[in-house]
């Protein structure tokens, strides 16, 4: 394979290693190769260029590692699936690279290695990526899953040598499309041939999606006996347990952390421990999440918020307020940050019994709040309202969030979590269900009005909702359809065409990924 037509990026914080790797890559024929010395440079380069391959050292200094970088760029979708990502690691850290669960590198190489080995590995993964390109083209946030599935089936029919990779992708697709029986059949088919961890976990996920939680748990337990280092199994099990046994979920996350420490899991542990009122453990976990990364690229507001909450619950008011202050240290000062920070400050004061200070901070938070701000800030604001005893205001905010994110179960779960933290679990469930019903009614009524010929009325109703609920794709689409029906009836006007177009793009941009 001729590597000279490809462009590469090499990431390593040690200058000597960088030049050695660059020489090895040149030996392999890769002439066009940029270099980055740290996370910041790497992110800039990845944002500005489209690389065919990235070779990254695991240890990047300042408490940052290549795995974190990979997770960040894959999650933000700044790194296309077609870009090859090869991780280079020492013998002692290879386990951590190779156990990475969700965002694994395409391959990893253990130092030292020869240019020949490097070339062989690069060629193999490039070959694989190129063959799988038709599938990748339809994957991702805005991808067409049905088309991806068709491409998978075409490759399976040709008995591609990458059939197993295709089956893995197909299983994920089927689960994402909630074709749970088909997914189960696929995984069982693989397991009938031989034991393999990904199919074991896939089978458990399919069982859980079908509602058979008990069977899924047993299956994951057995998988972990055989594969005690397979992180995806811990992640699936923790997700299952989070539903009704958070203490057990916390234990599972603790175990996973022993296998491979990751900031993401520390965060998850902190959140669970906070819910379980295990405040010392929560503080420890958030502390680690905050401390590990000295670059600031992998931190989130929530880490400091969790730190503040777990501290104040232990009576450490001063330390809690220090965490609130630190919140703005690594982030640009957006209105969202101001809301989030003031809300957490208010919670700390409320919990420590200083209701006057709590009220003042809450007022600041409410004044800074604006339409369309992110879910995390909104939910924290609702938390603060509850903490100060302002249930009306809290419910107003939660209603807005729930209506806006009606189609997003993850957000609805988090909204329910806010009710739960306020000790209003059953009331929250009723409240959220009522919101859901209201949205269904709104859509139904609009459709009925339109059918009855009252197009203007239907359109006005939907426009009002769509302008308010930027993340509710269903409402935006219906508003757009109403505009199109008006065009059909009255002929096109610039205003109607613009409106139809605006709501379609709004639906298209609804529900951006919900990560810090």
């Amino acid at each position, binding site marked *: 394979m001729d590597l000279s037509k490809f462009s590469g990026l090499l990431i390593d914080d040690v200058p000597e290693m960088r030049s050695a790797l660059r020489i090895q890559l040149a030996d392999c024929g890769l002439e066009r190769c940029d270099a980055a010395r740290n996370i910041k440079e790497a992110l800039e380069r990845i944002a500005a260029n489209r690389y065919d391959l990235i070779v990254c050292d695991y240890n990047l200094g300042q408490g940052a590692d290549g795995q974190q970088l990979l997770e960040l760029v894959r999650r933000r979708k700044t790194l296309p699936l077609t870009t090859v990502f090869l991780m280079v690691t020492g013998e002692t850290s290879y386990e951590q690279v190779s156990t990475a669960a969700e965002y694994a590198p395409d391959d990893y190489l253990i130092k030292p290695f020869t240019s020949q080995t490097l070339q062989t590995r690069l060629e193999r993964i490039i070959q694989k990526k190129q063959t799988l390109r038709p599938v990748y083209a339809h994957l991702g946030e805005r991808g067409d899953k049905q088309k991806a599935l068709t491409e998978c089936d075409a490759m399976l029919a040709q008995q591609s040598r990458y059939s*197993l990779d295709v089956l893995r992708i197909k299983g994920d697709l089927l689960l994402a499309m909630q074709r749970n029986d088909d997914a189960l059949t696929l995984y069982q088919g693989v397991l009938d041939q031989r034991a393999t961890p990904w199919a074991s976990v896939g089978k458990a996920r399919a069982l859980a999606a079908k509602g058979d939680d008990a069977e899924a748990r047993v299956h994951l337990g057995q998988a972990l006996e055989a594969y005690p280092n397979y992180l995806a199994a811990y992640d699936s099990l923790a997700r299952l347990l989070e539903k009704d046994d958070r203490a057990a979920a916390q234990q599972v996350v603790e175990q996973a952390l022993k296998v491979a420490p990751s900031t993401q899991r520390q965060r998850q542990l902190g959140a669970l421990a906070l819910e379980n009122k295990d405040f010392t453990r929560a503080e420890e976990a958030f502390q680690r999440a905050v401390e590990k990364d000295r670059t600031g690229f992998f931190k989130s507001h929530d880490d400091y918020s969790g730190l503040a909450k777990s501290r104040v619950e232990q009576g450490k008011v001063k330390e809690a307020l220090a965490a609130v202050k630190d919140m703005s240290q690594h982030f640009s000062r957006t209105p969202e940050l101001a809301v989030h920070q003031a809300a957490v400050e208010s919670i700390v004061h409320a919990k420590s019994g200083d209701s006057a200070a709590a009220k003042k901070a809450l007022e600041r938070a409410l004044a800074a709040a604006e339409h369309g701000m992110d879910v995390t800030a909104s939910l924290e604001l609702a938390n603060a309202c509850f903490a100060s005893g302002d249930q009306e205001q809290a419910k107003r905010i939660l209603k807005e969030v729930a209506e806006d994110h009606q189609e997003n179960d993850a957000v609805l779960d988090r909204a329910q979590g806010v009710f739960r933290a306020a000790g209003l679990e059953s009331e929250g469930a009723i409240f959220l269900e009522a919101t859901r019903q209201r949205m269904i009614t709104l859509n139904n009524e609009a459709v009925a009005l339109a059918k009855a010929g009252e197009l203007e009325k239907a359109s006005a109703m939907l426009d009002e909702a769509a302008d308010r609920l930027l993340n509710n794709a269903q409402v935006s689409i219906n508003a757009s359809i109403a505009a199109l029906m008006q065009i059909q009836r009255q002929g096109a006007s610039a205003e109607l065409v613009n409106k139809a177009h605006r709501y379609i793009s709004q639906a298209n941009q609804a529900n951006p990924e919900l990560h810090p």
Partner: protein
Amino acid sequence: MELLTLYRAGENSLRLVIEDHDLIDFCEDVTAEIILSPGSNHQIESDLGAATVLGAWAFDAYQVKMVLQEALRNALRHGKQHIRFAVAAQAEGGLRFTVSDDGPGFPQEVLDGEAVAMDSGSSGIGLVFARLIAERHATPDGHHGRIELANDGGAVFALVLP
């Protein structure tokens, strides 16, 4: 390397990383790094027919590669000329890697499981290491890996993975 692994096993911190690996690629990696000494008339013949049929298998590529390379180096030390490296499916399920040579075969005490060294001239921990890695490979339905030693026109070392 083996010392580190054994140390970790003793500390209970040895972690196997079980993932799918393409068998053809893997077997190529195993033999590619074995360097024959200059002037040697040894030949390693690979029989990878079954690898194409099986496609992939789940195991810790790093550790299993160490075990197989140790077995190959051992065969090169004791074999006269022909070394065979083969992969095959087990009838009762499982995957079998075999390294065989045309040398004098294993001494009886090694076959009896008394001697631990794959080669008395080496670090003396080869077989302990191989057994450990094999046994740590397991499946959810309770199967474990193993090694099997036999003499058949030379030494036959087999690593069976579940």
